[in-house]
């Protein structure tokens, strides 16, 4: 009897650890928050399912719903935000190509939202090159969206980032580029002047480092 209890204890211990490990490595929560009404949930689930069927990433959609609930947005606004994001995700995937990953699609959708045109995303994708070892564009797209959000004209921002990507500037350098432009803008420099100076500086630096 004691042996049976001991075995049961071991099973319980194993299950407890397995549960905790599984929870620690669990994927993002793909459930809708409880406060939403039944009609809203049905609408949102329909949107999310259509995105899933289309092969688009759905985690950003769930996250958008949760953000709306966190910010106490009314349900109509949450639905509109999810609809818009689903639309942007589809446009970004279309502009960047079918081979891009979920993170690139999400970052691309964010860039579109910032005012970057789909054609500029396509040019960026082309500038990256066409090898099998193509580095993800996620950082470039994040930098692009950030610059546009800070008031840099989208066309200028896209041209600069495109040039840097074409020259294989690293992700770390792209982020430094963003910080430097931001600093210039805060310091009162015009967007065009800041972009031009920082882009040239970054290219020269990349050329110097090239063996």
């Amino acid at each position, binding site marked *: 009897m004691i042996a049976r*209890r001991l075995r049961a204890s071991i099973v319980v211990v194993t299950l407890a650890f397995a549960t*905790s490990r599984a929870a*620690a490595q669990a994927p993002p929560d793909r459930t809708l928050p409880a406060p939403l009404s039944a009609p809203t949930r049905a609408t949102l689930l329909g949107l999310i399912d259509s995105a899933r069927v289309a092969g688009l990433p759905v985690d950003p959609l769930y996250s958008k719903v949760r953000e709306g609930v*966190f*910010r106490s947005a009314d349900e109509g606004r949450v639905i509109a935000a999810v609809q818009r994001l689903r639309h942007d995700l589809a446009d970004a995937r279309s502009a960047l190509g079918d081979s891009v990953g979920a*993170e690139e699609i999400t970052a691309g959708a964010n860039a579109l939202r910032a005012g970057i045109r789909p054609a500029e995303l396509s040019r960026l994708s082309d500038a990256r090159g066409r090898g099998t070892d193509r580095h993800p564009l*996620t*950082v470039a797209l994040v*930098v692009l969206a950030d610059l546009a959000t800070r008031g840099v004209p989208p066309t200028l921002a896209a041209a600069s980032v495109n040039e840097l990507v074409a020259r294989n500037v*690293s992700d770390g350098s792209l982020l430094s580029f963003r910080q430097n432009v931001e600093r210039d803008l805060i310091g009162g420099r015009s967007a065009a002047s800041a972009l031009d100076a920082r882009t040239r500086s970054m290219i020269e630096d990349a050329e110097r480092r090239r063996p």
Partner: protein
Amino acid sequence: MSEPDSPRWLDEIGDELRQEVPVRAAWRTRLLEDVARARRPVAGDDFDDRNDELPMIPTASVETAVAASRRRERVIVLHPLAGIAAAVVFIALGVGATLTALSWHARTLADSSTVTGKTPRPGTTLASNAPADREVVRFELSAPTASRVTLVGSFNEWNPVATPLQRDSSTGKWIVSLRLPPGRHVYAFVVDGDVKADPTAPRAADDDFGSANSVVLVGGRAS
């Protein structure tokens, strides 16, 4: 029993304690049976209740009550190994519950010291030999007058109580370090109830709900 030089109040307490306490017949029977098993009463002994003023209980009732009480007896023998196993189970359940709560909070573990020495600021990316590994990201906000700062984002399901920042009293900065999975994460600070973007990180453009969020990238190529 009282000593000749005992104070009067002590004698009164002793007298009071020696008063007979009436109990239920069944309880009394069980008690007496146990006493009888333990030792024989001796005349003049404190346990000698032959002059008890309580009503006598018929022998048949005593036997019935004793038999019933014996039927209710349960002998539990706990083997040392079983005791250890039970302790381990409870500890494991506690650890499991804690880990589950932590993982739900942020799918992160607020521990910057045990994973890696790299603690990049949000907005930076890390070189990673194992892309699937989580990386430590340090979030900071300078808010010397704030009384409470938390972090919300796609990595903690936008839960405003899941990831509090700790105040560094020497600098006035609020700090937390999280282990995040690779990818693009959107987040914001909640400063005394107000949502604020990170002033040092790239901004996300999707301000659908009023104010901008920030972006942190994990697992990119840093050089």
